[in-house]
Every structure is written in structure tokens, then in C-alpha cells.
């Protein structure tokens, strides 16, 4: 898959709260479909559907154990998707921290004007 399409698939996969919860669960270690279904009021087929979306996006993979076929997180893919937004966020955060400082100055100025 091309990088942009892959990124699309990743973001689409992460747009759903159940799938984000599954990711969060798998971040603590691999788990079988049944274990993953437990905390949700959802049937196993419904969970399997979510797992398929995550798998297609490359966010999770299946283990080899024939019976359990535990799912595990592919952390690298998640990081990739995160990287760009994180850099963009840092840049804006720098701007907004300057804005914080400016707003403090403006507030002080207003107070001084009022007390005069």
C-alpha cells in the first residue's frame, strides 16, 4: 500500500472509539478475540469486524498459536501516523505558548488601565 493510502487507512481505523479501546488494550499485551470482546457489550463477530479494519490498516497482526490466534499491536504503524500530527502540534504549541505570554501581558495592561 502507498504511504498516503496506508495513512488514510490508519486514521480511518482510529476514528472509531471501540477500535481505539482495542488498541489501548493491545498496548498492554496481546489478547485473543474472546479476551478482546469481554469488556465490550458486543458480539464476537462485531469485534472481529473491528479487528479486520485494524488489521487491514496494519495496526495489529495475528499470532501463530492455532487456537487462540492472539492479536497484537503493530506499534510502528501507530507511531508513523502520530509523527506528523505530533510535529505539527509542536509547532503550533510553540506559537500558542508565545500567545499565552502575550495574553498575560495584555491582561496586566488592562488591569493597570482600569486601576488608573
Amino acid at each position, binding site marked *: 500500500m502507498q504511504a498516503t493510502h496506508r495513512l488514510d487507512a490508519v486514521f480511518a481505523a482510529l476514528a472509531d472509539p471501540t477500535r481505539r479501546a482495542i488498541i489501548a488494550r493491545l498496548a498492554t499485551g496481546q489478547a485473543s478475540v474472546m479476551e478482546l470482546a469481554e469488556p465490550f457489550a458486543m458480539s464476537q463477530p462485531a469485534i472481529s469486524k473491528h479487528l479486520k479494519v485494524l488489521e487491514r490498516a496494519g495496526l495489529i497482526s495475528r499470532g501463530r498459536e492455532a487456537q487462540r490466534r492472539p492479536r497484537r499491536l503493530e506499534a510502528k504503524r501507530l507511531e*508513523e501516523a502520530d509523527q506528523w500530527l505530533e510535529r505539527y502540534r509542536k509547532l503550533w504549541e510553540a*506559537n500558542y505558548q508565545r500567545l499565552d505570554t502575550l495574553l498575560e501581558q495584555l491582561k496586566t495592561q488592562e488591569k493597570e488601565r482600569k486601576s488608573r
Partner: protein
Amino acid sequence: MKRALTITKSGDRDLVMTREFDAPRKLVYDAHTKPDLVRRWLLGPPGWTMPVCDMDVRVGGTYRWVWRKETDGSEMGMGGVYREVKAPERLVTTERFDEAWYPGESLNTLVLIEQGGRTTLTQTMRYESPAAREAVIKSGMEKGVEASYDRLADVLAASAATQR
């Protein structure tokens, strides 16, 4: 205090930023609409200045911003038109870079909501198409090398400066 900036994808062509500020929204709005204030914070990475900051803040008015990297003199410019101006709560602008690396322009909507003397800022960037948004994101995704990181930082600096 919830200060952290969040940026998320929304729908198929929006990026949404939210951030809280410890100030009434009138001041936040001023900081986005008065050139002498804008220049004091909308600068991007260290080493960049904002030599041009022309803003005619009224519906149909235009704005023009240029940033310069003082170490090598390289410049990045962008501008657009004010579509909606509703002090102190809403600004809608178009945005186009001189050397656009994504197709078309984006439509940026700034919304300020005040509660208890604090202001929540939401900035939505709507790109022309899902492909355009991907191009914006891809510009940061596919170049892993250090040099293009710098360039991306430059581009984003300008982009940062842009968003109001």
C-alpha cells in the same frame, strides 16, 4: 488546567486544532486580528521573523503574511481573504501559500468560546479535497531525512502563521 493543544483529523478533509487560553476571548481575538499583536506570537520555529503582516480585517478584506529565516534569508509567504468577521468569536479566512505544496486553498474557521474568563480556541482547516489534506500530511510523512524535516518545519512555520 487543560492547556494541551490537540490536533485531529475530522471528516474526510478537515484538520481540527483545539487549545485553551487563560484569558477572555476578546484578548485572544485581538491577538488574532491586530497585526502588531499577531507579529509577536505567530512566528513558527526559532530564528524566523515576520517582516510582512498586512491585515485588512473585514469581510472581503485580504491579508498577507511573510516569514523570513534570518540565517539564510529564505522567505515563505501566504495570504487570503476574510470571509466572515464576527468579533470576538469567529473568523473565517481562506489560506493559500505562495509556493503551495498542496492543491488549492484551505478554508480556516476560528471559533472562540469563553467560559469563566478562559477561552477555548478551535481552529478548523478545511482542505479542498481529501487528497489535498493527505498532501499536507504526506509532506511530513514521507520524508524521513533530517534536511526535509527542516524544510517541513519551515513550511509548517508558515502554515502555523497562517491559520487564522
